[in-house]
Structures are given as structure tokens and as C-alpha cells.
């Protein structure tokens, strides 16, 4: 046989086959989509119906936020997918077969992460656009007189595209932790702590401590891309997402370093 060395493209095609041939991939994306778009429709609709009766809602009215913020729950599905694509290799024993076929471990894991991140990006963008459009439609149809947003307005397109990017990035970060931890439960626990628990606990700290945490905690910084405007101290959208991307790159770098050195 011809000994043409296997390429990154070969491994990426292989990882795509792995991803699309297990049912959990499909169902995780379905859950993410339903959760994201459904919650967005619900929250947008309920908020619009209270627009005239609730002073706070009216004073801080942000139709884009009402339909995009609910995606912060859907991000769980993307995190779970990011974890499972990695830990399923370990829990099933597939990792031994995978690494025998592709002994260059960084190549194998980088291909896997590339494929799952690209898939998450496509699904994430579809979910973000669907959540926005369905949400705005809900607002408009529940209360036709309430202001609603369109993609053509200032920064709206950036928020929607950024939301999809953020979802893919959450999945990638989750994969990085999963490579380090190798167990689904541990991987999911860490990413949930990262996304929800630590930011939540920070709120209990004195303001001088909690404010920098809220602002610079990597996954919080990432969500800046969800906001149309910015407070005096908040990071700008792309800088925030950039910080989260940088953090993700560091986690993945450490994970790949460990992966190359330990016994599989």
C-alpha cells in the first residue's frame, strides 16, 4: 500500500463521522435549540405583556436582550456536547482505538475540537437568529405598540452573531476541561461552576471584590457580546469575547500538554 502520511484533513473527516454517527449529538443540539428558542419566545412574550403594567420593565426596555439573554440557559446544552464528545472516548474505551489510529494525540484532539466547535457554531448561529426572530415576533404580536428590534438596527446583528459565537466558545471551553478531567460528570461540574456557580457566589462578596469578578470572569466577559450598550466599567463586546477566547485557548493548551504526556 502507498504510505501517504495521514493528514489533519483525514483526521477531521474521521472526527466528523464520529460526531454525526452517535445519537447524543443530535439530541443535545435539539435540546439546546428548543431550550434556547422556546425560552426566548416565552420571556419575550411575557415581558411584552407586562410592558405597560411593570415600570421597571418599561424603564429598562431592551427587546434584543429579552430574546437573546435566555440563550444563557441553552449554553448548558453546548457545554454538555463539548464535554461528551471528549469524555465518550474515555468512558467507552474508544480512546485506545482512536489513539492507535492517530498516535499524534494533539492532532487527534485538535481535529475533534475543530469539528465539534464548527458544528456548535453553525447550530449556535441558527439558534441565535431563531431566538431573536421568534422573540421579536412574540413581542410584536403580544403588544403591537411595544418597541421591538430588527437586525438592521445599530449593533443588533453583532449581538445575534456574537451570541452564536459565544455558544460555540462555551462548547470549546467545556471540551478543554473534559480533556483534562476525562470524566463527563467532572467535566460538566467544572463548566457549570464556571458558567453559573462562581459568578453567582461572587455576587455575595463585597462590591469592591464582586465587581471585577463580574466584569472580568472569562465567561462573564464573553457575555458582553450579548449587550447592546455598555456601562462605564464594562468591557466592550469583542474585547470581552476575546478575553474568553484567550482563556479557552490557555485551558486547551494546558489540556493538550497533559494529554501528550500521560498514559491514555
Amino acid at each position, binding site marked *: *500500500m502507498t*504510505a*501517504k*502520511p*495521514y*493528514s489533519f484533513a*483525514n*483526521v477531521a*473527516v*474521521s*472526527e466528523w*463521522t*464520529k460526531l454525526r*454517527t*452517535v*445519537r*447524543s449529538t443530535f439530541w443535545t443540539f435539539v435540546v439546546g435549540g428548543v431550550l434556547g428558542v422556546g425560552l426566548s419566545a416565552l420571556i419575550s412574550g411575557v415581558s411584552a405583556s407586562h410592558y405597560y403594567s411593570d415600570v421597571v420593565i418599561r424603564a429598562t426596555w431592551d427587546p434584543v436582550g429579552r430574546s437573546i439573554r435566555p440563550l444563557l440557559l441553552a449554553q448548558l446544552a453546548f457545554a454538555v456536547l463539548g464535554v461528551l464528545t471528549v469524555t*465518550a*472516548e474515555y468512558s*467507552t*474505551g*474508544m*480512546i*485506545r*482505538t*482512536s*489513539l*492507535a*489510529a*492517530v*498516535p*499524534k494525540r494533539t492532532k*487527534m484532539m485538535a481535529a475533534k475540537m475543530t469539528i465539534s466547535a464548527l458544528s456548535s457554531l453553525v447550530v449556535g448561529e441558527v439558534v441565535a437568529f431563531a431566538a431573536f426572530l421568534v422573540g421579536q415576533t412574540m413581542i410584536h404580536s403580544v403588544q403591537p405598540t411595544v418597541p421591538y428590534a430588527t437586525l438592521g438596527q445599530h449593533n443588533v446583528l453583532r449581538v445575534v452573531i456574537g451570541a452564536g459565537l459565544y455558544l460555540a466558545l462555551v462548547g470549546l471551553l467545556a471540551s478543554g476541561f473534559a480533556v483534562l478531567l476525562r470524566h463527563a460528570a467532572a467535566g460538566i461540574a467544572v463548566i457549570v461552576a464556571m458558567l453559573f456557580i462562581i459568578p453567582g457566589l461572587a455576587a455575595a462578596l463585597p462590591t469592591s471584590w464582586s465587581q471585577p469578578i463580574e466584569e472580568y470572569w472569562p465567561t462573564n466577559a464573553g457575555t458582553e457580546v450579548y449587550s447592546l450598550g455598555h456601562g462605564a466599567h464594562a468591557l466592550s463586546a469583542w474585547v470581552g469575547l476575546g478575553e474568553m477566547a484567550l482563556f479557552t485557548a490557555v485551558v486547551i493548551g494546558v489540556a493538550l500538554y497533559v494529554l501528550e*504526556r500521560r*498514559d*491514555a
Partner: protein
Amino acid sequence: MIEARNLTKSYGATLAVDDLTFDVKPGTVTGFLGPNGAGKTTTMRMIVGLDRPSKGTVTIDGRRYRDLPVPLQEVGALLDAKAFHGGRSGYNHLLCLAQANGIPRRRVDEVLAIVGLDAAAKRRAKAFSLGMGQRLGIAAALLGDPRILIFDEPVNGLDPEGIAWVRRLMRDLAGAGRTVFVSSHLMSEMALTADHVIVIGRGRLIRDESTARFIDSSSTRSVLVRSPSTPRLNELLIREGATVETDPSGALVVVGLDAARVGEIAAQAGVVLHELAPQRASLEEAFMELTSESVEFHATGSTNGGQGDR
């Protein structure tokens, strides 16, 4: 050719593999023998780069496994009957492996036919029996049509038909000029399939020789003698330096003299013999004797809860 040089693997204070040096030569079935926990699986994992040696090296035709340009075309390994994702079909499992090494898709159908899984290939692998899982693992090992095959305990858990099939397959592969390196904790299994044996115990090399020689040198031989004048013969044989025991049927079991010599001694003394039969210890007994000092976990129990058969 697989070349291990001073291969060593330690887990903390436990030495799983201790300074192993051996070659696995092309065109033969080489048996890798040792009791459970002797370090066979760890050695095989180091060959395919899953575990990194604490010391020493192991190479495939002079290259480290991870430097092989197309690993599956050089080495096919079955290390574990369940090393696949149960949610994926057998076909897709093989497809993703083939794609990773740029092996054409039609080869997936070919290996499925070789192992007789073509009918079940579209089913999810979690529904496979142990035997089918083993066949899927063998199909994966054959995907790249490799020159070297590594099988770790391939007949474990198989039914007699499956065992016969695996034995035939290994012989056919070696017959076609391939290198087959197969581990087992059963000597009798190896006597049937291997040309050469590498025996280890507690991670150390005990023997590295042809199967015939191994069987020859490690079986304690004795001679069974039946005679109407047992006490006289007993005396004569002991005088010649033999160790003699009497078995329950009254026959003598002679160790230290071969059958020809026993016959000559009897003839010179005019002793009548009714039976003169060379005896051979069973292979399993020979193997157990050889490795008895190196068995890590005796049935009587051990305080060392160590690594088991890693």
C-alpha cells in the same frame, strides 16, 4: 519487526514491566505468555504508544509508533474487546478509523466480510455479544492490511467456535508473511498457535525461545515403569541415581533417567517389564512451575491491591 529494548514501566513503586528486551520477528506467530498481572497488556500498550515507558524504548521497524506515517497500515492492534463507542454502528466505527488514516471506504466492507460481521454491521455496537465485539476489534486491526498484528488475549470469552476461528486466522496471517504477536495466560493455547514464545512474570523476561524448545526444556520428564519385581527394580534405579516414586496403581514413576536407560538397566538385571512409558508433564503444569515464583496474586490472598493486568 517489533524491538523492545530495556522496556520498563513503573506505577509509583510498582514495576509493571521490568527491563524487557526482546524482538518479535516477521512471519511468525509469537506468543506472549505470563500469568495475569505479569505486564503483558502494559507492554502491548507501550508498543502502540498508549503508555509511555518509564525507561527504555520500543520500535516498529526502527520507528516509534507515533512516528509511523500511516499507523493502521503498519500495525493492527486488538488490545481490548470493548474499545469502541456502543452508540455507533460497527460499520461507522470502522469507517471513522479508516478515514483517519486515509484508507478507502471499500476496505470497511472487506474487513467486515473477513470477520463475518457484514450482516450485523449496521446495528449499534452496544448490542454486540463479546464474541462480536472481539470480531469488530479484529476487523479494525485488519483495516490497513498491516504487516504486524498485536492481539491481547484474543480468545478470552469466546465460544469454542470463535476460539477455533481466531486460531485459524492467526495461522493464516502468519502464513501470509505477517508478524503476529499474541498474548495469553494459557500455555496450552500458545502451544497450538505460536512458533515462538516470550514468557514473562512480574514484568521480567523468563524465556524467549521457540515453542518446541520451550516445551522440551520446561517439561519435567519422567518414566512410568510397571514390573512384577518392583522392589528389586526400585533398588537398581536408585543406585543409578534416579528419583523413584510409587504411584497409587503400584507402578514406579522414575525421574532422572530416560526410558531407554531404564530398559537397559532392567535387561542387564534380568527384570521383567510389563510397561515402560515416557511421561511428560502437561504444558500447563510446566508453565505454572516456571512462573510460580513470579505470580503476583496467589489465590491465598495478597495485601498488594496493585495494578492488576494493566
